[in-house]
């Protein structure tokens, strides 16, 4: 049970305090309700580029990192399709430094041309490092674009292409900031060796005077149900053929999300999982397999990926995969196997909860989804999943009409 208190400042900033006196540290986590899904299709990669610009100095503080390092702290940030998150860890005695820095950059950035110019280059190098300069690097882009036709999950957070990042203008940066980075669109979590009184006082002092801004109304095109299987063939200079397959699942708050999540654990993730045991060990068709999902807020996808053993044809490989999925539809998962994936979930949660940083991040995330207290009901929701539901959902999800297949051939 993770304890916390929550209050809202008059400008709409939600504040959550989670005390843990066993650590000498404090964590500040600020989550903004904006991600790559909120981007203009001709300006993709912007939310992430913007995250970089948040470190380029704010209206009253020329350097963000230095004062924090001087206070013995460190920080980082990440952007997903759904949200942007900034976090700091520092000695609890110096907590106010975090309030000072974070509130100033929520007030306003410095909007420097030099910072934009440099970060455009840095993000282009990030794009190259992770998506261009390695074999199969473009798979994420291709499979998302194949699976989504309306919803903005069709592009990745890094952006569709380098040119979108190269063309970003300072004007775009300003507009984006004042639209999304307002108190009313943010959640502040302070955790660790702190008191509620102190956090309340500091929050009012540093964040209280920032104009509320307008609540961002998200109105995204939702993906209509897929009626026909889609296939794409790619030939590239890679050493091995690979097979990728994607199926649409449910939004994060849908009860069936938990069923889909456990289905991926049945299929993959351990040495005793079905895909590994059958495809890699017994039939020796793939040299590695993985099956996962992104856990996105709007309806996400389950993604299968595997590299084929040399000499195996794509047909053989795909048929064997389909046979495993057919078995899931045909025969209910045994209680024993279901218990196994529930036990795994229980220990994953326990291990994640060891770190204050991770607890702070989760609290912000559940609050963004709707209510921070949901952090304490997750295990219950997983435990409620039945074998019958697993079977029913596997029939819906692993329907050929709901699938997107990428055949990635070695030249």
């Amino acid at each position, binding site marked *: 049970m993770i304890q916390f208190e929550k209050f809202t400042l008059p400008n709409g900033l939600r504040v959550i305090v989670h005390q843990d006196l066993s650590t000498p540290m404090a964590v500040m986590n600020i989550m903004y309700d904006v991600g790559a899904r909120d981007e203009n299709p001709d300006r993709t990669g912007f939310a992430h580029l913007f995250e970089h610009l948040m470190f380029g100095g704010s209206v009253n503080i020329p350097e963000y990192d230095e004062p924090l*390092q001087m206070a*013995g702290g*460190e920080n980082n940030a990440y952007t997903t399709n759904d949200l942007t998150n900034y976090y700091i860890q520092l*000695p609890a005695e110096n907590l106010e430094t975090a309030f000072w820095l974070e509130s100033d950059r929520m007030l306003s950035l410095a909007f420097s041309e030099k910072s934009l110019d*440099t970060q455009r280059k840095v993000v282009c*190098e990030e794009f*190259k490092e992770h998506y261009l300069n390695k074999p199969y690097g473009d798979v994420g882009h291709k499979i998302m674009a194949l699976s989504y036709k309306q919803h903005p999950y069709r592009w990745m957070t890094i952006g569709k292409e380098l040119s979108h990042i190269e063309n970003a203008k300072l004007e775009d940066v300003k507009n984006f900031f004042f639209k999304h980075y307002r108190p009313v669109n943010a959640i502040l979590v302070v955790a660790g060796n702190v008191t509620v009184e102190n956090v309340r006082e500091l929050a009012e002092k540093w964040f209280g005077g920032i104009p509320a801004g307008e609540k961002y109304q998200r109105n995204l095109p939702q993906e209509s149900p897929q009626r026909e299987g889609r296939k794409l063939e790619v030939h590239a200079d890679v050493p091995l053929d690979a097979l990728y397959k994607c199926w649409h699942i449910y939004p994060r708050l849908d009860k069936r999300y938990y069923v889909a999540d456990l289905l991926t654990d049945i299929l993959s993730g351990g040495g005793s999982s079905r895909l590994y045991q059958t495809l890699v060990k017994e039939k020796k068709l793939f040299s590695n397999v993985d099956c996962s999902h992104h856990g996105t807020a709007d309806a996400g996808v389950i993604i299968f990926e595997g590299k084929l053993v040399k000499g195996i044809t794509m047909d053989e490989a795909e048929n064997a995969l389909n046979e495993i999925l057919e078995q899931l539809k045909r025969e209910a998962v045994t209680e024993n196997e279901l218990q196994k994936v529930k036990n*795994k979930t229980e220990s994953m949660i*326990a291990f994640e909860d*060891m770190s204050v940083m991770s607890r702070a991040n989760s609290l912000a995330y559940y609050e963004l989804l709707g209510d921070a207290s949901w952090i304490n009901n997750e295990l219950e929701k997983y435990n409620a999943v039945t074998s019958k539901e697993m079977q029913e959902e596997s029939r819906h999800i692993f329907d050929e009409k709901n699938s997107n297949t990428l055949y990635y051939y070695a030249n």
Partner: protein
Amino acid sequence: MLNRTKAPQIIDAVNFKLSLKPCVKIILKNGVEVYTIDAGAEEVLSIEWVFAAGNWFEEKNLVAATANFLLKNGTSKKTAFEINEHFEYYGSFLNKTCHSETASISLHCLTRHAGELLPVVRELIMDSTMPEEELITYRQNMKQRLTVNLKKSDFVASRTIDALVYGEQHPYGRYSRGEDFDSVTRDEVLAFYRKYYQKSKLTMFIAGKLPNNLEQILNDNFGDLPINDVTVGDIPASPAEEKKYRISNDPDGVQGSIRIARPFPNRHHPDFIKVQVLNTILGGFFGSRLMTNIREDKGYTYGIHSYLQNNIKQSAWLISTEAGRDVGEATVNEVYAEMKLLRDEPVDEEELQLVRNYMMGIILGDLDGPFHIISRWKNIILNNLDETYFYQSIDTIKTISAREIQALANKYLQPESFYELIVV
């Protein structure tokens, strides 16, 4: 009116009194040393079995790594699938890793399941059969993985720089080729397993919420394992003659993987701790000289880092980055320019204070929780140090002078001592 231009008062982290929570040592009936930390709120355990079974001891490339990998792929009573199913049923995570001097098995589990899991770990140590069938699958899949990795410039650069610094025959510099996987036989792997696991030099590290009867269940499961007194002999490094390399790996590559490295003594050398401070200034954190210049000013890279390698016998000081194809040479030049600056001019007091505070804050944060604490202890024990190493580090961070740092830069940051490599 709030003055936002003025930073709040801080307490300099150098004023913190940091202490390393002592670990409790248990000695099993057979003499195996177990180091434990009992702490944390969650009912979880991390247990690691560290064997003197790294590639230092192999007579043929990949035998140590293969033996380590196949540990959980079959015993005389259980198949690989049954072993995995057992650990996974209890929601636990069983991993194995092979390093140079050591190789280990590690288990993360809920404390209440330890009793169901430890007997099977014992079975892996005493009764693995390393089936031929498993070896064949492993060999094939590792060879496939290697062909993919060899397309990546960062992979090629990292293994090449180690081979240059230590020599291709040295355990730290040795790397795998497809044909090496082919030539490893089950007999060789089994012989290695018998010599270094079944009869072993074993040390254990345990952290988390410890069960009340820990000592008893450890003795029941591991107190009678046969002990082998293995020593890590000296294998001299044979560094390459030539220092500068440019390798073309992918004609369409859009980035170059840059590695610049020099040999460096191990943790027992008096300069090792001091150089940690110099290294932090050079490239050890986000505010470092290299990051500030090459990423934040010039935008040549997404990240650039420097560090001392975590080896027991001998270390190397390494600078590593992936930079745009056209700015590779410019990046290398900037790295040397930063070294020169550190040689020529003392670090100013404000920057030094920032680095001291930053390093102290990181250590403070890193002493948080049982798993972090045990990993500090493991580092100390496996390097044959004691806790004075920790306190000396703290003391050095607090007191090292700009003049000493400059002297170290002049001693070590000489371009001619560095191997330099760009792989595109």
